């Protein structure tokens, strides 16, 4: 029972399919179950799901829980509503990638002085504004991010060179609105920065 629940818990918690080997990996060596055992338990979990809203399916890279397709039309309505607003952190990250590309996450963090959340990078990738174009050959091989053609298209730019150059950007008065001005110089966070 415990074995089965641990496997079930892992499949629910992982955000991606898990292979049999990965499932074995959640156990310490001394009580790691055999492959056959894991496979058997997966079968049991699959049977348990029969009357329920989800199913445990095997895809190319392993097993994952998915919502049974008969329920997808309801569930999809969760996303039909309001778009989320982009936060300050996302905008800044995007700006740094645009100007400093190709840039690693560490480089972005260096400029911003704050850690960059995985969610932000994922959102930018999902929107297809940013993509990984390679890995830097330093320990850890961090991904190198760059902007895409879709990014240029969205903002009606021919090339990145159409963005104002860095040297002049600081001197441009982008928005005369006083309250924006106030909040630029001193780095004091204001409501505007809340995501």
């Amino acid at each position: 029972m415990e074995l089965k629940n641990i496997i079930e818990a892992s499949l629910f918690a992982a955000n991606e399919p898990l292979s049999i080997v990965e499932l074995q990996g959640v156990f310490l060596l001394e009580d790691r179950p055999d492959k056959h055992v894991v496979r058997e338990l997966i079968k049991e979990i699959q049977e348990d799901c029969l009357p329920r809203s989800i199913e445990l399916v095997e895809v190319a890279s392993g097993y994952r829980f998915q919502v049974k397709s008969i329920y997808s039309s309801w569930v999809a309505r969760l996303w039909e509503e309001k778009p989320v607003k982009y936060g300050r952190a996302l905008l800044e990250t995007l700006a740094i990638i645009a100007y400093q590309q190709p840039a690693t996450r560490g480089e972005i963090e260096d400029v911003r002085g704050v850690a960059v959340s995985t969610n932000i990078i994922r959102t930018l990738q999902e929107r297809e504004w940013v993509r990984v174009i390679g890995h830097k050959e330093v320990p850890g091989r961090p991904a190198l991010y760059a902007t895409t053609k879709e990014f240029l298209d969205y903002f009606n730019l021919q090339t990145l060179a159409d963005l104002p150059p860095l040297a002049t950007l600081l001197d441009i008065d982008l928005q005369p609105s006083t309250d924006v001005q106030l909040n630029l110089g001193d780095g004091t966070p204001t409501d505007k920065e809340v995501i």
Partner: protein
Amino acid sequence: MDNSSNHEVLIQQPLALVEGKPYKDLPEDLYIPPDALEVFLETFEGPLDLLLYLIKHQNLDILDIPVLKITQQYIEYINLMQNLRMELAAEYLVMAAMLAEIKSRMLLPKKADDLEDEEDPRAELIRKLQEYERFKRAADDIDAMPRLYRDNYLATAKLVIDKIDKPVPDIELETILLAFQDVLRRAEKFSHHQIQREVLSVRERMSTILLVLGESTEEFLGFHSFFTAKEGRGGAVVTFLAILELCKEGLIEVIQGEPLSDVWIKPVIE
């Protein structure tokens, strides 16, 4: 202050009488090897934290701090730090001044008629210490609370459908520029966050080169594959600069068989 001689004087006679008991030994935690001091200071969240440590470590009652003794120890730390020419946060000095003030006020003989309405000079300090201590504890409590992705994990199932019309927010280029301006101004305050003022078209070309290399099945690509004749001399120059930059950052290798022959580019793989 000359610390060594000061220590000697302190060690020879009872240091203090704390709640009636003579105190002979120098608290062990008072002397800290100089190289550890920096680490030591970093473990404190400020003067209140340091004071609390001094008080707690000697099992003193926060409501009845022997101000003179604590002041002396505190100032000794400050002196040690200054002797080491450590950069001391101003707050530590302000606290030293405050302690010195309390100390001097306590030493002043009181006039009988003041006694009623004049608050004990320690009261304000004790209030601050108590207030800080309760939030320090609250911080520990919060840290100990079960937290998502550390103690708790979401249980999710994937929704597989062809396409969710997930609405995405519109943004204007200006918003991004503003955000970048903000980062720049912030970064300018720190000299070590120098942002290189490079020509954007070079940066863009750097991305393109890496992208093309990544997607190519060939081991090497020639210099010419990264720009078109249509781009003319400008394209060649931008490509050349981008290649130099990528080379400098160790992202690509440039190989030339013989002088004046074509230049070949390959991505660096460990």
